[in-house]
């Protein structure tokens, strides 16, 4: 994948993960799971109502608005409209001022999803990650279940799982509270300083988290949290 393709794919996957984080129920009509149609187009869902060029997806991310491909939209206007509503809902939720756990899960979900795309596809990031595998869990202090997990099995790809306990984490990150988690997702916290101040703790195999953190910052610089 070239640079723009990775960016667009990360945006599309993040939007889908955002919908998961918000607990939106999908039907065939409003499903926005991204599909790579060809080297120029990405469809939200298999029904092809809402299709963007990669370039327009990048514009959608940076400007908050971009035109979908009209020929697809006109062929299934109702499906397209429902999907647009879903995307708008995610965008609206990302601008929320309500600092609750749902918002944190949303931010973490979209941020980690974009990072996982970069770790899988971006040459620099995949080079940094090398053959590393394992499970990284993100917790809110006091919770028994992780808010989100980043995982890669041998021979697999990095993937993001929300709100599901899994087995044998290599790294466990615990945010002191929701506010800290949100600031962390928005890249407003310095990991070194925050760790020394106890704003979050990182336990387990730290070199893996160092690499993921570096990839997350590369991703965050190229794709700041979505403002669709």
């Amino acid at each position: 994948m070239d640079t723009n393709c990775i960016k667009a794919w990360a945006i599309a996957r993040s939007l889908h993960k955002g919908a998961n984080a918000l607990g939106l129920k999908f039907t065939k009509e409003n499903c926005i799971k991204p599909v790579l149609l060809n080297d120029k187009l990405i469809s939200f869902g298999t029904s092809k109502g809402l299709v963007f060029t990669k370039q327009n997806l990048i514009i959608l991310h940076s400007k908050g608005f971009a035109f979908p491909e009209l020929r697809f939209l006109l062929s299934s206007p109702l499906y397209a409209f429902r999907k647009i509503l879903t995307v708008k809902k995610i965008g609206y939720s990302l601008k929320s001022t309500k600092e609750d756990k749902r918002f944190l899960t949303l931010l973490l979900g979209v941020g980690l999803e974009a990072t996982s795309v970069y770790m899988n596809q971006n040459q620099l990031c995949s080079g940094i990650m090398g053959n590393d595998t394992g499970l990284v869990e993100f917790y809110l202090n006091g919770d028994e279940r992780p808010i989100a997990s980043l995982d890669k099995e041998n021979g697999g790809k990095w993937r993001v799982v929300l709100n599901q306990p899994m087995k044998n984490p290599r790294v466990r990150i615990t945010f002191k509270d929701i506010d800290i988690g949100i600031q962390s997702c928005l890249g407003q916290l310095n990991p070194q300083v925050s760790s020394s101040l106890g704003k979050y703790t990182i336990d387990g195999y730290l070199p893996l988290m160092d690499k993921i953190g570096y990839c997350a910052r590369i991703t965050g610089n190229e794709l700041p949290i979505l403002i669709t």
Partner: protein
Amino acid sequence: MRSHNKSDQLSTRASAVIPNGTYGHVSPAGSLPRHFAHFCSAGEGIEFTDVDGNRWLDFMCAYGAVIHGYQNPAIESAVEKQRLQGTVFNHPHEITVELAEKLTEVIDFASWSVFAKNGSDLTTWSIRVAREHTKRPIVIKAKGAYHGVDAWCDPGMGGRVKSDRSDILEFEWNNLNQLEELFKSNDGQIAAVILTPYHHAAFAPSVMPNEDFWSNVRSLCDNHETVLILDDVRTGWRLHDGGSHRYFNFTPDMSVYSKALGNGYAISACVGIPQLKNAASEVFLTGSCWNDAVAMRAALTSIELCGNESVAKSVLEKGNYFCEALERLALEFDFQLQMTGPASMPYPWFEGDENLFQIQKFCQAASAQGLFFHPHHNWFISNAHDKGTLDNALSLAQHSFEEMKNEL
């Protein structure tokens, strides 16, 4: 948890004016989480005090930079006398020559010596000397080995371009077949092999060289006219008073020292065989404060102490006593703890603890007792540790094992 108020204030202030607040091996996220001290105020012998007034029984010795204890009286007194004369001048002080003479006297293969401030200054310079001598580009190192902060070897990820490592090849420690293969596939291109005396990577148990490792590495280098460089920065004076190569019974062509050399004063040295002296003369080397008479006086006194008090033998014996007792203690609580590497600088490893949760718990519990046990780096036994302090540490460690056991 011990108090952190002033440490927190300093962390906050530091973050405003220093990238990451603190960085490198002392950074909190990379190695030492909240329950450890982050800023120190004083140290004496085997204890130091953090900025909040918490006292710590130390097993890191300034990450190995201190071997005779903090503020060793003999060294401080010699340093104080030197300081009265001055530190850095337009030209080297007489002590520079004295120190070079001393090093070439105590390091059996060395006929010359140069000085800088940090290990990295001279590990990087030494590979350039090897390149100058051989007129070849490639340097071989062990995978995961630390040789400093320069782009050819640093463990970080930022600020690097591909060409930084285009002439650096790696092999797995102890895997002589791999090393041989590298020589074969790059015949006539390898300037140097740079290695630590044993493999002391962070976040992993230490690995000693196999019995035939060093003799084979030496032979391979000889057969291919490649320079063998020993990075003795961390280990120097902790295994043998005449350099760690003697502990493992081989002879390198150059060795780099720092850390214990100055007992906390910033100094590094590279020594070498006569055949490399011309090449060493051709590779530019300087630093405004590198002819630091105070640090050199500290180094000279430190080397004399190491010889007079057989410090390497002493710290190995003390380390053996401590490591064996700690392993036995762990076993009493059903923990399989192995103190890997040489006993004077042991790396603690719980069986099956690949993800490090157990060692982190243990070190956290130990920190509450005032023990500075590092979860991801080898520890250091200094000559200031004595049986009393080691027994005290073992007694405090017992509480930490108890706490861990209760948490299960």
